[in-house]
């Protein structure tokens, strides 16, 4: 299903999405982030520093609440995410490609009900990258493309005054149907223009991982390379690269006490990062990954080797956030290339 939408009717489409909460990138306090879609959303954003991953995997998730009166058994009350239907506009293809990857993680072995419940009500309306949203993008080298539809329900292509709207999934079709008369039928010229724009986007020069297919084997061979410490030398061990990555999913579980008489609190999941030193530290103080190099190796290997070994795909979609946002410029592309080049 394909259609045309006047850019200034985007708000009307959103208004027509009955029962859906809509979100779109907006600039506030100097940065772009996904916000409830305002009166006149314009999809002219660069890549938002934070990906839309929080919609399905929020930074904080309450699993259940507990309450215990002295001498009695604790009472547990599971907290389930309220069933909501949310549609996120303006998702870049790299972030779209992150969706199936996250889906894999949270359904592998057993289903994570919390993720699933949020994911079930989510739709992503993507926006093709006619021009690269950042100089650090490298989606093509990791199997993606600036016009990829992977993980998206709808893909928009910017035609200047109008969007070319293409449904990817049934949900996408439903969203488009809701637009009714707002959508116009595209003609051959428009289709041609889209094809041209897409081809041009793909043809844009991009930096990239040299041979992503070979990366798993190369990283395996280079596991003991002294280069890891070398490459991590400037790393300050913050969590930016992981917190902002659309596919990083590590988390922590903690009990948050909110009262002591009687004992009250919640068990809560929060994002965590393999770059933090205590992430793997045993209670004895032994830490299997006790250097910045070993932690960088874990992050990069997880994305380019382990995930591939388990699921047959890279866990990096080339969004470039970990590169652009890293305070000291640790560059995952360079890391993969250097390690691969050293073996």
């Amino acid at each position: 299903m394909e259609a045309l939408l006047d850019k200034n009717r985007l708000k009307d489409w959103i208004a027509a999405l009955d029962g859906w909460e809509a979100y779109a990138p907006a600039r506030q306090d100097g940065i772009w982030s996904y916000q409830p879609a305002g009166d006149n959303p314009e999809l002219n954003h660069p890549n938002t520093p934070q990906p839309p991953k929080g919609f399905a995997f929020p930074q904080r998730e309450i699993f259940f609440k507990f309450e215990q009166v002295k001498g009695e058994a604790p009472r547990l009350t599971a907290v389930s995410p309220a069933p909501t239907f949310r549609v996120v506009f303006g998702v870049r293809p790299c972030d779209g490609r992150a969706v199936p990857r996250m889906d894999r993680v949270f359904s592998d072995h057993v289903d994570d009900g919390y993720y699933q419940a949020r994911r079930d009500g989510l739709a992503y309306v993507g926006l093709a990258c006619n021009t690269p949203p950042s100089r650090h993008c490298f989606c093509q080298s990791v199997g993606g493309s600036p016009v990829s539809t992977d993980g998206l329900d709808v893909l928009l292509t910017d035609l200047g005054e109008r969007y070319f709207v293409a449904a990817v999934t049934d949900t996408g079709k439903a969203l488009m149907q809701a637009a009714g008369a707002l959508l116009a039928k595209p003609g051959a010229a428009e289709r041609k223009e889209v094809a041209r724009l897409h081809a041009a986007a793909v043809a844009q020069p991009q930096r990239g991982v040299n041979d992503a297919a070979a990366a798993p084997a190369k990283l395996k061979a280079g596991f003991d390379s002294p280069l890891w410490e070398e490459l991590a030398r400037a790393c300050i061990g913050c969590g930016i690269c992981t917190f902002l990555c659309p596919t990083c999913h590590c988390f922590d579980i903690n009990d948050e006490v909110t009262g002591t008489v009687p004992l009250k609190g919640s068990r809560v999941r929060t994002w965590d990062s393999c770059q933090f030193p205590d992430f793997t530290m045993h209670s004895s103080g032994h830490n299997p990954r006790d250097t910045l190099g070993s932690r960088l190796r874990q992050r990069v290997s997880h994305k380019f080797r382990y995930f591939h070994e388990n699921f047959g795909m890279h866990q990096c979609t080339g969004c470039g956030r970990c590169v652009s946002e890293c305070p000291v410029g640790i560059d995952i592309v360079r890391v993969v290339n250097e390690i691969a080049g050293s073996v």
Partner: protein
Amino acid sequence: MSSKKRTGVFVCHCGNNIAATVDVAKVARVMATEDSVVYSEDYVYMCSDPGQKAVIEAIKKNQLDSVVVTCCSPNLHEKTFRDNAQAAGLNGFTCEIANIREQCAWVHKDRNVATAKAIKISRSAVRRASRNQALEPIGIGVTRRVLVIGGGIAGIQAALDLANAGLEVVLVEKQATLGGHMIQLSETFPTLDCSQCILSPKMVEVSRHPKIKLMTYSEVKEVTGYVGNFKVNILKKPTYVDPEACKLCDDCTQVCPVMVPNQYELGLTARRAIHIPFAQAIPASYTLDIDACLGLNPVRCGKCKDVCEAGAIDYDMLPRTVTEEVGAIVVATGFDLYGQDNLGEYGHGKIEDVLDGLQFERLCSASGPTRGKVLRPSDHSEPKDVVFIQCAGSRDPAQHCAYCSKICCMYTAKHASLYKHHVPDGRAWVFYIDIRSGGKGYEEFVQRTMETDETIYLRGRVSRLYQENGKIRVLGTDTLSGQNVEIDADMVVLALAMTPSKGTAEAAKVLKIGRDKDGFLAEAHPKLKPVESVTAGIFLAGTAQGPKDIPETVAQASAAAAKVIGLLSQPRLTHAPTVAKVRAAHCTGCEMCVDACPYDAIHLENGKAVVNAVLCEGCGTCQSTCLRAAIEVKNATLLQMNEMIEAVLGY
């Protein structure tokens, strides 16, 4: 500590004092719902005999390991109930008091409100108790010896009092002789008795006292340890003269070719490089001033060694460091005068006939440079017009010292009066701001100086003085008459402010004791602990602590001695065990706690803070300062405080 605490709560009615406003039964009931509480009851008078017995019984019967008594102020019965806990076989520190009387029942009327608050107070005590550790008081052995620093009248008096009480004393004096400033005075107000005459016998007594080890020409270089157990390193500078061998024949000074100003005479006369400060110096021996000497090399000079028949001179004498162990320290390092060179308006000390008080004392002294005649240093003529200026450097926060030096009014009156006795036809003027003559017989003394000795007192400041035609022109105002005053004086005597001596600053540094904003040694409490320093075991005496005259100095010295005697009369000192403890793993050695601790109880060892439990008073300043929560006071830990906050908020 592998199982949960078993806390007992005892809620007191205090007759009706508490029970009238607080629902004590409810408090007891609610406390029973606390996690750690296994026993909770209320009782009419907890502190009564049966009440106390009941507590002891309940502890035993319920195998309690911690106790909370919710009753009146801990000031009243904390000890009682801690003793009860102890009697029941618990450690006293596992008992906490919740004050629901003074802080609750007595100050509120509404029963519900008061009960709710009482519950919060009690709950926070329960939380605290459930994390209390059993602590044993820290016992400290004591060394029954005392170090006295400074051999002025303060040090002398303290040393004698201590020694007479049977304590061994080490008296360290920086100069070659005992005596301090008092030995330089001619007569002393208000009785005008001869200073040397009253001091010399005491000096002799010190030197002969079997319990006093006198170390002159010595300095304290390092002090470690703590109350009861200080270790002191004392540097004994070489005098190059063996006091035992020296016969005081004075042959050496006759041949010594070097002349330097005589400090004892405040530069009014000169002395040789080898010298005795004054005839009655104790120890009675010569000292070779190495800074002045031409060189300890017989080739260069060596005249004194040649001439000394007693063979007392030893050029090879070396500085020696002696280590002494003492249980307490008295600091009596005295004062200096505010330098004349600080006073630009009075000629920067460059006008020869402008003297300071001590110099004038020497001029009046029968043993002084002029054998007791008041003569101008410049031409040895008898001054006929002498101006005395009080508050020279005192009470002038903008330029000089803010404080009142306290003794200047008196000694100026004394000086004027002595002058008039020496030069009956001379005229004496005194410029003053106020006359402060509180003290027995002091006011009368000043009145006599004014009336009998016909001294002219002018209220006002001298703005400037300068030399003209062999006179010193003094420009001032008499604020009473509003007139400008100009006097052509033959001599001017400045009553310079009393400042802490250089040695006092040095001693404070070595001892790590505080000084006040003026540099005098800081007492632990301005009213209640005037002779204690901030550090346990270190006491203060004399002008090192603040300006004072001789009677006050002596009184403080004796007071310090009494404090030391009291301290060292205990066979063992005990110290509260609620002291700070470092979590070494978290400490980064940033030294913030070290700087913040008011008791200097913390130092670094291998890059980690270490608390000296004996010095720590448990104030918690370190705990609130450490950024990393690496130091906590036992039984008042961060966790305990946080849980108390939670309890108070019903969180």
